[in-house]
């Protein structure tokens, strides 16, 4: 679906309307909401109320006891999560979070202010669960959970990418992602969820990757990569899958297998591992590091997918796990995995077989981020890099929300990028590192039907790229997230045409000097490298 033109979108009014928010209802306009899950995906994940339905219809085909189900679920979550309970009680509505949300900045819709997004739920908490709210209603900031409120929840809880930028600025650390996850879980209880989140989750659960490519087809795809790498470098490499007794299990988001430009990043990993002579393996069963189950807010889904990684590590008998470039995968891996599916006591504390570095920071979960691994290699001079093979590239780096605010991974990827490209400039400081802006399409919202909101939500990110593009001639946006690699190219085309999006390890792959390689004339995208073009024979 095509979004309106940029000049139509930028007429954004951040002033709220006259009518108060409790009196307004969302309009389900094409481009601003995601399509509902197909029933089969709900069934595969053993969730609730599978059916065909459409958000624009009056009747959402909810079960008769939908309200009781949600309120019961709400009470249950309050018992299980201190975060939710505290966040329901302590917001003072200071508004510090308001203009921190990319969707508010890009749409001006007041209910996209994090405070109001949370109030959508808080008002129900007060109205249904507190004495004052029950007695005084909106005079105590409370309201009842009605059909319209439920529809509003669906609209706005699927207009949040759980990026946590607001939680950084909140004086009490109120985390809208926690509230949004809770909201999505409650919506799940009555079968209101979106397909772009549910289908990848169902595929990862049953097949092992988010597109649902069956293992033998995936094998063929890997063979294509091997051919491409040979064509570019002259080096024939092997990609070990399901190899028992390997030292390392490598898990990456499966987006890297299917979609350009993630595929080039994937080739970068393969070349690096080959050059190091790394004893590693990948798995068709646990071929997905990303976790679309997490986005559903129903934590059981996150566990169903994440558990495969440790299970496979155990079956294959590896010593530790290396994780590829992916945003929310690393939120789950860093903040949830050990708790959710650990302890990984059958693994060893990760130790780089090349440099001998022991990754003490991963001593319990035994999983290392690829940029931690590669930064260590570069620091020790363990790989030979030639920046000239990235000639013509002036790069910047987009901190993905989750590794930024859910992990603190800032300097490792920058160190890697700066070592492989000739020129690097960071975007303005209020738009990077912990203050980074979302790509606008995270948490299952990277679908086509949501394109207008994606372009709106991506405006702050794109605008910062535009700044360094105009000022320093930055032409390449590097990132460490598969969703970024899928969604930033259309975002750049829309707001900053001419900027290329690349994974960090694509740049590493290009710069990597390999034993037995031929003279490189093209990069992994098979585009000529400036200054290294093939000499024309007939000149």
């Amino acid at each position, binding site marked *: 679906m095509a979004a309106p033109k940029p000049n139509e979108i*930028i007429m954004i009014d*951040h002033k*709220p309307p006259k009518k108060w*928010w409790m009196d307004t209802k969302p309009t389900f306009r094409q481009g601003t909401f995601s399509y509902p899950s197909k029933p089969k995906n709900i069934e595969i994940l053993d969730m609730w109320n599978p059916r065909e339905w459409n958000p624009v219809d009056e009747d959402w085909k909810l079960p008769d006891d939908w309200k009781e189900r949600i309120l019961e679920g709400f009470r249950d979550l309050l*018992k299980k*999560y*201190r*975060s939710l309970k505290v966040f329901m*009680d*302590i*917001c*003072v*509505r*200071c*508004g*510090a979070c*308001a*203009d921190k949300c990319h969707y508010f*900045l890009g749409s001006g819709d007041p209910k996209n*202010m994090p405070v*109001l997004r949370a109030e959508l739920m808080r008002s129900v908490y007060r109205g249904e669960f507190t004495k004052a709210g029950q007695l005084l209603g*909106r005079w105590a900031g409370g309201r009842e959970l009605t059909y319209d409120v439920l529809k509003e929840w669906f609209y706005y809880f699927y207009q949040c990418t759980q990026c*946590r930028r607001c*939680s950084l*600025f909140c*004086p*009490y*650390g109120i*985390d809208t992602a926690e509230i949004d996850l809770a909201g999505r879980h409650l919506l799940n209880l009555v079968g209101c969820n979106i397909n772009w989140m549910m289908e990848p989750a169902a595929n990862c659960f*049953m097949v092992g990757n988010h597109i649902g490519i*069956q293992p033998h087809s995936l094998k063929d795809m890997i063979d294509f990569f091997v051919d491409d790498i040979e064509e570019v470098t002259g080096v024939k490499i092997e990609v070990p899958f399901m190899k028992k007794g390997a030292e390392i299990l490598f898990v990456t988001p499966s987006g890297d297998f299917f979609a350009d430009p993630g595929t080039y990043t994937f080739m970068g990993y393969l070349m690096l591992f080959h050059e190091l002579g790394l004893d590693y393996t990948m798995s068709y069963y646990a071929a997905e590091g990303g976790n679309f189950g997490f986005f559903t807010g129903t*934590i059981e889904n996150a*566990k*169903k997918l994440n558990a495969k990684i440790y*299970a496979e590590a155990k079956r294959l008998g590896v010593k530790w796990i290396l994780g590829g470039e992916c945003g929310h995968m690393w939120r789950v891996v*860093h*903040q949830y995995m*050990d*708790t*959710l599916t650990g*302890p990984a006591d059958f693994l060893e504390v990760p130790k780089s077989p090349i440099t001998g570095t022991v990754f*003490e*920071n991963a001593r319990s*979960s035994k999983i290392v981020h690829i940029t931690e691994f590669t930064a*260590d290699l570069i*620091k020790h001079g363990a790989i030979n890099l030639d920046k000239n093979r990235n000639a013509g590239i002036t790069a910047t780096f987009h901190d993905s929300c989750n590794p930024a*605010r*859910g*992990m*603190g*991974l*800032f*300097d490792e990827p920058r*160190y890697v990028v700066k070592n492989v490209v000739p020129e690097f400039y960071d975007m303005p400081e209020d*738009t990077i590192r*912990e203050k980074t802006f979302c790509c606008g399409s995270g948490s299952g919202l990277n679908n086509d039907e949501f394109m207008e909101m994606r372009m709106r939500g991506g*405006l*702050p990110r794109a*605008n910062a790229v*535009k700044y360094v593009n105009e000022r320093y001639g930055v032409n390449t946006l590097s990132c460490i997230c598969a969703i970024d690699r899928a969604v930033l190219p259309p975002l750049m085309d829309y707001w900053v045409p001419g900027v290329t999006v690349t994974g960090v390890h694509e740049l590493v792959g290009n710069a990597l000097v390999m034993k037995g390689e031929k003279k490189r004339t093209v990069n992994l995208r098979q585009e000529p490298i400036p200054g290294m073009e093939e000499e024309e024979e007939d000149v």
Partner: protein
Amino acid sequence: MRIVMPFIIVVGLALTAWAGWAIHLQGFFGVLVPYAAALIFVAGFCKKVVDWAKSPVPFKIPTTAGQQKSLPWIKHSNIESPFTTGQVIIRMFFEVFFFRSLFRNLKGELRSGPSLIYGPTKWLWFSAILFHYGFLLVILHHLRLAIHPVPCCVDLIDKVDSMFQIGAPPIYLSGFILLLGVTALFLRRILIPQVRYISLVNDYFPLFLIMGIVISGMLMRYVIRTDIVGVKALIMGLVTFHPVVPDGIGAIFYIHLFLVCCLFAYFPFSKLMHMGGVFMSPTRNLPNNNRAERHVNPWDPKVKLHTYEEWVEDYRDKLEEAQIPID
């Protein structure tokens, strides 16, 4: 109406106290109400905190605001991304005493181009600091009414607070700081369109209540003087559990006291509980050492996994055909 109604309520509360004084209910407003309010405050506050504490923290979810601790040669941001409990305590210290997160505040503005401009904005932080520290000082020097003899630290605060003596009685700076803070917070709430839009009665009511307290207190000190010896006797009576109701204390005192009691009684049921909640926020009070120290979830969800064996059964023919090793 969301603004007017809470204002009327606060005026109504003040009038109630005045009326009570006029019909000689000093015992009720001077003794019973304060005890009831104190009881509600303490019991309500504890109940709320215990209620929060009863819900577990299933996952370690700090919002990381700085570089993680990873490789030894990468500089770890040990306060913004704390790894140890000690570092968490420092982070919390800055959060609680200096409102660190609020200090980070930025203002985003969309200009033509389009171009989004961000700049630091400290007004909210500054108002909040004035308000909270003003309030703290005011409470501290009220201790002189409740402790006998007056401890030297309270005396010292008093000396600093009243250093600008313009005639008698000395001016307490803290009261004016608090008034300035509460006024600034009120003004931004009604003047910034987005903040006005999100504001509830729940936000205006405590502001008006605190304004009422400050104004009645100032009137009592600087304008409508009352019998301060009698007031001290009443307060000492309350805190020593030998309540007395001296004659001759003016209505203004009872108004002031009643509004304070209302604030205390309202506190546990309101957003003012952020005072306790800030300490319990899992995005701030947990270390970013997730991969090094395992966190245990007491209600670890049980799920039905799709096991390797089941997966092999799904694809056995295809796996064999593609010569993918099977267990």
